């Protein structure tokens, strides 16, 4: 039986009807057509579906949409600043951190949560923060470089 829920996705309120067995991933991708969030296993084993729930990275494949009623959700679509890229997005583009791009949305939001909490992470801290996001293309190193470069830009912005 469908029930109404409202999700605050990227700052916008979305009212939708949803069955209890739908995950946040399904509602984002299929009800709201926000297909930027990806899926690679739907079992919590890859990190591709990561989104921010009230600022914390979670796996949208393991969260029931109804349990998110009224909560703030940030997806990759919400990172862009108007027509401009978020510094993380720009750095990922410039450093080759997105090859096939499929893990990228999950990595980006996870990296954003890290930098929101820790503006100046060490490379080891970045590795740890992103250790729940599998990437099969890059070998992670360009991702680490990109997060470092973005952290620098974000620190400069705050000055």
């Amino acid at each position, binding site marked *: 039986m469908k029930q109404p829920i409202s999700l605050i996705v990227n700052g916008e309120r979305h009212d939708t009807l949803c069955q209890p067995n739908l995950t946040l991933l*399904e509602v984002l991708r299929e009800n709201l057509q926000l297909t930027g969030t990806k899926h690679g296993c739907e079992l919590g084993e890859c*990190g591709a579906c990561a989104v921010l729930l009230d600022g914390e990275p979670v796996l949208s494949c393991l969260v029931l949409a109804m349990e998110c009623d009224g909560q703030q959700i940030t997806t990759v679509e919400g990172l862009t600043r108007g027509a401009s890229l978020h510094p993380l997005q720009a750095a990922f583009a410039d450093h080759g951190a997105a090859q096939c791009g499929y893990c990228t949305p999950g990595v980006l939001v996870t990296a954003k949560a890290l930098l929101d909490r820790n503006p100046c992470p060490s490379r080891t801290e970045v590795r740890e923060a992103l250790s729940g996001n599998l990437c099969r293309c890059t070998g992670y190193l360009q991702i680490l470089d990109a997060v470092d470069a973005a952290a620098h830009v974000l620190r400069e912005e705050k000055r």
Partner: protein
Amino acid sequence: MLRLPEFQLLSPQSLSEALALLQADPEHSSILAGGTDLLPNMKRRQQTPRRLISLRNVAELGQLTVAADEVRIGGSVRLRTIETHEALAAELRGLVQAVSQIATVHIRGTATIGGNLCLDTRCEYYNQSQPWRQAIGFCKKKDGDICWVATSSPRCLAVSSTDAAPALMALGAQVQLCSASGTRELPLADLYQNDGIHYLSKRPDEVLTLIRIPQRAGQRSAYWKLRRRGSFDFPLLGVAVAVQRDDAGIVQHAQVALGAVSSRPLLVPEASALLCGQPLGDEQIRQAAEAAYPLAKPMDHADMSLSYRKAMVKSLVTSALREVRGDDVSQDRQRLMRVLG
């Protein structure tokens, strides 16, 4: 994509409401805490509850208090909260080390401590999709009548894979179980039974509501974990130790616990006996490791060979005890677990 079967989702606003809902049909209900264990299992149809009772809005289960004599952690406290709790990092290092190595940062942001303690036992013949399990003719734990790990085994050999349990057992934790008919408290070790199917002594109508950990002055604890990678993987072996020494360096209290070596986490009482009343010397550590070794009975139903998982028991017990002794084992820890701290 893999999708969940249909179920009824109930969202009680209080513990009493939750317990009443559970009481109404415990056999067909599951508690939904973080859901990071339950939901994948439901997607693979390993578990097919008709009703999920969510604890998300049950505020009283989300409390974490650190007092001089006791730490109290509500069953719904998220692993991430424990991992990032400054006071806990100082007081209960072994617990924080264990919790911070569970799954991934994302899962720790959703998963709860109660959920990890009640984690379903795991097995390569069981943690599979319904079609895969059909291809092997199913197994004892779900829909079948044989244990493929050891076909003559009278019981299911699925392995306890909680990281938090050995850490908390070493720290002497008690857990509180509540049902509509009452509340009981028991040592955490007694929550577990050595049976892959009936691995908890918790009744279906009970909810794990609270964990109480006694504070012992000067106690030090550590948790060492064996797995292929520094993230994602369940433990192939978990070793937790907690040791309290007096000013002369004599061990007053010691516990060694093993995880992922049988269907339940184990305390190693022989190790406690060997260590207490002695200095924490190399020889005592060696003996404690020897004592732990025979208790580990890894089976061929997880990553890495069982002989290796067994062989690593001594090594990990030794490392954990050396760490609480104050040896600098950070490089070994970094190399084995790929994590700092």
